[in-house]
């Protein structure tokens, strides 16, 4: 079984985001990491691979720097590394089309990804790819199992959680999973360095990146909050509670 895992490289969640000339300044990002929810998807993919003897394909869309993340994925067990080079694509629907074409090209039986990326925070990619390839999609899952030719997964419900079964080709978008991404061992790291990365262009995938009706005007720092009122000592609690009622009107 071919298991495709869609990965995105993002500024590490500890990294400071600076803006220059109306844009997030990528050059100033101190550390790039695999998006945290994608890590859960990758770990689930590795477990699925071990349980089924499948082949794990790690796919990413992005600039040259994202290849490092694919090598990291290989170090923990990804078998095939696929890089779709793009620079500055603005519209997520373009990325969805590229990823959908790639998972079809590798004849994937199941596609795993994070519920949303830590940079754009959208959550469109998993369901969007599912729509394009005619697959089912379950979002916010914490684990995926395969038995008797069917996938089952756990997702939140209104009253707790529910175990659901999915028919046929499926996309699973991960929330925090039941296990953290494993650490690579030395052998894994050494082998990963030699693992080739397959580069597939949008032309190779037959995806025309038409101009988009979506324009990014600017990116900016979040609005500054006016400085708050600070009190020293617990004896001010009563006073603050009254302010919450009379000034803020929230209790």
């Amino acid at each position, binding site marked *: 079984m071919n298991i495709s895992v869609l990965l995105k490289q993002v500024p590490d969640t500890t990294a400071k985001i600076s803006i220059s000339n109306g844009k997030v300044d990528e050059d100033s990002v101190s550390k790039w990491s695999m998006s945290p929810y994608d890590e859960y998807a990758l770990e689930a993919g590795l477990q699925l691979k071990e349980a089924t003897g499948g082949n794990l394909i790690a796919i990413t869309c992005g600039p040259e720097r994202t290849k490092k993340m694919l090598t990291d994925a290989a170090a923990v067990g990804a078998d095939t590394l696929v890089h779709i080079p793009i620079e500055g694509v603005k519209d997520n629907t373009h990325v969805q089309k590229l990823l959908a074409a790639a998972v079809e090209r590798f004849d994937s039986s199941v596609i795993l990804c994070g*519920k949303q990326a830590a940079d754009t925070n959208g*959550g469109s990619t998993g369901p969007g790819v599912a729509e394009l390839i005619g697959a*089912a*999609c379950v*979002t916010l899952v914490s684990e995926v199992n395969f038995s008797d030719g069917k996938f089952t997964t756990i997702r939140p419900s209104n009253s707790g959680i*529910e175990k659901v*079964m*999915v028919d046929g080709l499926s996309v699973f978008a991960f929330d*925090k999973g039941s296990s953290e991404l494993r650490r690579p061992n030395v052998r894994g790291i050494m082998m990963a360095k030699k693992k080739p990365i397959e580069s597939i262009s949008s032309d190779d995938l037959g995806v025309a990146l038409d101009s988009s009706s979506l324009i990014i005007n600017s990116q900016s720092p979040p609005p500054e909050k006016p400085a708050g009122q600070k009190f020293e000592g*617990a004896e001010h609690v009563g006073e603050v509670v009254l302010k919450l009622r009379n000034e803020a009107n929230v209790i």
Partner: protein
Amino acid sequence: MDFTVIAEANGDSLHPTTYQLIGAAASMGSNPTVICPNGTGAEEAATINGVEKVISVNGDCFNIFDGGAWASSLSSLCGDIILISASPNGREIGSRIAAKKDIPVIQDVTSMTEGITVSRPIYSGKAMESLTVTGSAVITLRPNSFEAALAENNAPINVVDQSADVKISIQEAINKASERLDVTEADIIISGGRGMGTIENFSHLEEIADTIGAAVGASRAVVDEWGMPHRMQVGQTGKTVTPSLYIAVGISGAIQHLAGMRSSKYILAINKDPDAPIFGVADYGIVASWEDAIPSLKSALSELQS
């Protein structure tokens, strides 16, 4: 541009965000069509100001949440600009409708003006992005970011039957005996961090939460280290919340935590470290240990309630 609102249900009635979606459409000078999946809340939707008509969509496909099935039954009923709540289900349906129609989807929008120009937080609120869309689009709106429309209307309701191929089936429902409010639904949240000392001390926060009808949240540190449920986690890898009041107790304010709660309307921080970064985003800060502050907070709040 004609606007379509896809209603969000809460049990048998409309979720409050539906009023905000309609309010947002109305603020753009539009009289939206409101689509009610499974007919839920259709009569209620017809009473909301600004609504041109309600489409009550019935079908077996709504018995379970399958975003693919929902999108395929709703998509053909939608107009140019489709507004949905940026809830998990809303985002999923929105992405699938956008992919189906080959139009852009813009998630988690917090403001919208003519153009159509919208802005949305990115990097979990560490930055904002302004976008303009010149054609059709799906736009999901962050709950509690738009003025709710009032209800003094009497719009017509059309009933439509739809069917769709459902690919997901429920094997087992596991109920969690949590009577606590979910942090994403609560109007007031009281969260604890490592400064609470031990997991047992969260009972003090729970007592306060019960007094004022708040949800209890937690920082990543205590979720990871003390094994609190992930659904309580507020922050970049947990929930993003926008309550009217967020009370942070013993939370220093790591950048990832701030990302998840900084757009709360009011923030009260209680921390014994006067230099804790949480004070940088707090409207009200009290420098004190939780042991000193919580008893007074409890009594002051119960006094207000009585």
